[in-house]
């Protein structure tokens, strides 16, 4: 084996420029894939974290049919006390749950006594909501960032609305809403903070205390629009989603009327995420094509240039299998050198991207997301193995051709 590698490397070095060019081409492809995967991963992770940590949570449970008409925030599709109890019990059985927050969502009129406008309201228990939406406090631009900001009688007003209405922290405002029976009720609240907008649905809601909403909507018992859930480990979303669905959506009675959704089913960004994954796949296919074509090209040339040498070694008794492996090793060395150079260069660039921070604005939000591109060892190994495997495949045909040459024909070749 040592000698096969020695001969292969020397033959590659014999045409230094051609080999270097091929190695660089492969390395370039590897760098491209690694950086794309790292950047796309960082982008996805940042956006997903922003969406789930701000308001969506990792999973949400609604009454069946609610999500289909989510735009109108219907109050007649609230979760009833028995259903909330069933959900509570189901969540206790899942150890991965870090927090759950019952919310009431409704359309309301927001009035500063001077002006009135429409507002979407999310009513929560502050401690439980902060556990599910850890980025919520950071969005409070002015005012109180503790759960006390959402104590009874307080309201967090969305930034855009506050600006338009001239609302400030400490102002008194009125929230008026129609309950599901059609009767109108209002409540005076104290503005405890201004809330920065976040991307996506729920990113422009005002926040009040759960019990204030019950009062405004004259709810007889504890009802909720949804239960948002945060898990300890984001990667468990699909699994926990399945487990909860099995417990809550199966069977008859009150449980049959529930539906469990993951963040991906609720956010349009999931489509973007899938698109990014598909682009990464496409990049990998491009890499395969680059390696296939460049290695095949070099190996066809190598066999053609060395016909007489092949005739010689075959004549003096080198077995076809050995000749085959000589050329396979040569192709693999090309691929390996390209993969190694690509991984090194890619790692260096990704490191540099982390030192000189890259940030993106997404979805018109004012927040800039600082990306920290990282690359899994798995992706590195995958790309390397892929490149090396493809270079084997690309070398097979030329190597087989070399091993099947008749020594007397090859020796006559000039």
């Amino acid at each position, binding site marked *: 084996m040592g000698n096969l590698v020695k001969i292969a490397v020397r033959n590659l070095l014999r045409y230094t420029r051609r080999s270097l060019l091929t190695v660089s081409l492969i390395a370039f492809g590897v760098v491209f894939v690694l950086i794309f995967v790292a950047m796309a991963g960082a982008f996805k992770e940042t956006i997903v974290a922003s969406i789930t940590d701000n308001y969506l949570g990792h999973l949400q449970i609604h009454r069946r049919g609610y999500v289909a008409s989510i735009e109108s925030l219907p109050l007649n599709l609230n979760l009833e006390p028995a259903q909330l109890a069933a959900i509570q019990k189901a969540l206790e059985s899942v150890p991965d749950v870090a927090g759950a927050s019952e919310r009431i969502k409704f359309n309301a009129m927001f009035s500063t006594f001077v002006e009135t406008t429409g507002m979407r309201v999310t009513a929560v228990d502050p401690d439980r909501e902060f556990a599910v939406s850890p980025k919520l406090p950071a969005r409070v631009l002015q005012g109180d960032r503790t759960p006390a900001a959402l104590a009874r009688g307080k309201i967090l007003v969305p930034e855009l609305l506050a600006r338009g209405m001239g609302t400030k922290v400490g102002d008194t405002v009125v929230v008026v809403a129609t309950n599901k029976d059609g009767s109108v009720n209002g409540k005076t609240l104290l503005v405890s903070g201004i809330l920065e907008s976040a991307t996506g649905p729920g990113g422009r809601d005002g926040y009040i205390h759960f019990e204030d909403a019950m009062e405004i909507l004259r709810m007889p018992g504890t009802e909720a629009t949804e239960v948002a859930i945060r898990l300890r480990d984001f990667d468990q979303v699909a699994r926990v989603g399945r487990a909860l669905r099995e417990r809550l959506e199966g069977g008859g009675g009150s449980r049959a009327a529930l539906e469990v959704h993951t963040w991906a089913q609720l956010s349009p960004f999931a489509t973007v995420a899938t698109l990014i994954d598909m682009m990464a796949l496409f990049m990998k296919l491009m890499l395969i094509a680059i390696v296939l074509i460049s290695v095949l090209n070099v190996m066809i040339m190598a066999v053609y240039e060395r016909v007489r040498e092949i005739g010689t070694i075959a004549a003096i*008794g*080198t077995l076809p299998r050995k000749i085959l492996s000589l050329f396979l090793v040569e192709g693999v060395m090309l691929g390996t050198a390209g993969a190694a150079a690509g991984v090194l260069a890619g790692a260096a660039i990704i490191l540099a991207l982390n030192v000189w921070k890259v940030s993106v604005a997404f979805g018109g939000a004012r927040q800039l997301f600082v990306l920290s591109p990282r690359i899994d060892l798995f992706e590195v190994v995958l790309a390397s193995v892929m490149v090396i495997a493809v270079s084997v495949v690309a070398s097979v045909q030329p190597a087989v051709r070399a091993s099947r040459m008749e020594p007397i024909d090859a*020796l006559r070749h000039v």
Partner: protein
Amino acid sequence: MNVIRAGDLTKTYATDGVEVHALMGVSVDVEAGSFIAFVGPSGSGKTTLLNLLGCLDKPTSGRLEVAGSDVTRLDRRQAAAFRGARIGFVFQSFNLIAVLTAFENVEYPLVMVQDRPAIERRRRVLELLDAVGMADQRDKRPEQLSGGQKQRVAIARALVTRPELVLADEPTANLDGETAYTIIALMKKLRDEVGTTFVFATHDTRIIGAAEIVYTVEDGRLTGRQELP
């Protein structure tokens, strides 16, 4: 003991429907340790005959035993293994491997054909480089050597596996007169030392005199046998 026993060998090439009878009934026995030449004009069939004797090609008909084995029945792989074990080759254009040094070229059959241990390889290679007078050039690549020096390395490569038979097709055709003569003399000296049979084909009248037995080849037949003193 005969290292070659060939009976009524024929070889017919069929190219584009035209048959070329390159060999027509060649019978020859070669005694072990002899130093013989096939001599004849270009196109007379010398290369064709040496290819058969070297198990590089199969006769169209006839019997052929090399080193005691019937080689007409060997398949491709077996023929390669047989050549690697029993036969050494010296070529007209030297055919050294360009990327290997003189030492590595001589070592090549011991590594890639016979798989010998490193210590034995080193001993044998140095012994042969010494015997062909190339010990001091052993780290040079072929491109750094003259034609005569390349052929010396090639002879060392042919002998390093201790074959029973060395075949050399026009070994001096690419060399000047004096070098040609010293190469033939070197082969003869090595035959004297190790007893390997040397068979060469040539139309080079300068070196015919060095052979011990000369066969004349004309139009695919052996037309003469001459023993030289």
